């Protein structure tokens, strides 16, 4: 199991209701593949730096999850089929991993100190 983060931009012309269902659908897809959602951040509507599919705004959603290595690949296929999804990116969650290794380091340090 590894920690990932995935971010996607939804087409604002879907309307609020559809956006809600798309977010839920994506979450369900991730969980349906045996992964655990750690956190969902909604950045909401943001201006795009350049137009994508003639849209100047997009609804950003960021999901942190923990799952097997196959999940990001399946997720990509899922995004590609979703026409309301303007952009997506799934990466290993460095922020989560860094927080963890820091914990480890500090615990190592505290263990070493009594010597």
């Amino acid at each position, binding site marked *: 199991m590894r920690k990932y983060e995935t*971010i996607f*931009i939804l087409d604002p012309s879907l309307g609020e209701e559809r956006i809600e269902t798309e977010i839920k659908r994506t979450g369900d897809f991730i969980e349906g593949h045996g992964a655990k959602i750690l956190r969902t951040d909604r950045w909401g509507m*943001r201006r*795009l*730096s*350049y*137009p*994508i599919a003639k849209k100047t705004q*997009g609804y*950003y959603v*960021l999901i942190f999850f923990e799952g097997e290595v196959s999940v990001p690949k399946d997720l990509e296929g899922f995004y590609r089929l979703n026409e309301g999804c*303007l*952009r997506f*990116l799934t*990466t290993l969650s*460095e*922020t989560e991993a*860094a927080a963890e*290794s*820091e914990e480890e380091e500090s615990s190592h340090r505290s263990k070493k100190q009594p010597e």
Partner: protein
Amino acid sequence: MPEELRRRKTCKFCEQKAKIIDYKDERLLRRFVSDRGRILPRRITGNCAKHQRQLTLAIKRGRHLAMIPFTGETTR
């Protein structure tokens, strides 16, 4: 310029002991691109090679997600 007048540039990320450069931090990324959206070279920013590589990747990810522009701000 005499040696003592030249300000020594240091890597901002090393100074802050940053472990990772987050592509989600738009304000940070914007500091390292020119007003035309190009990635500033190490020559100018003074970043170390390691952090410049990480930064470049972060900027490219940021561009993909339309958080920072590929070209100048005024694309019409």
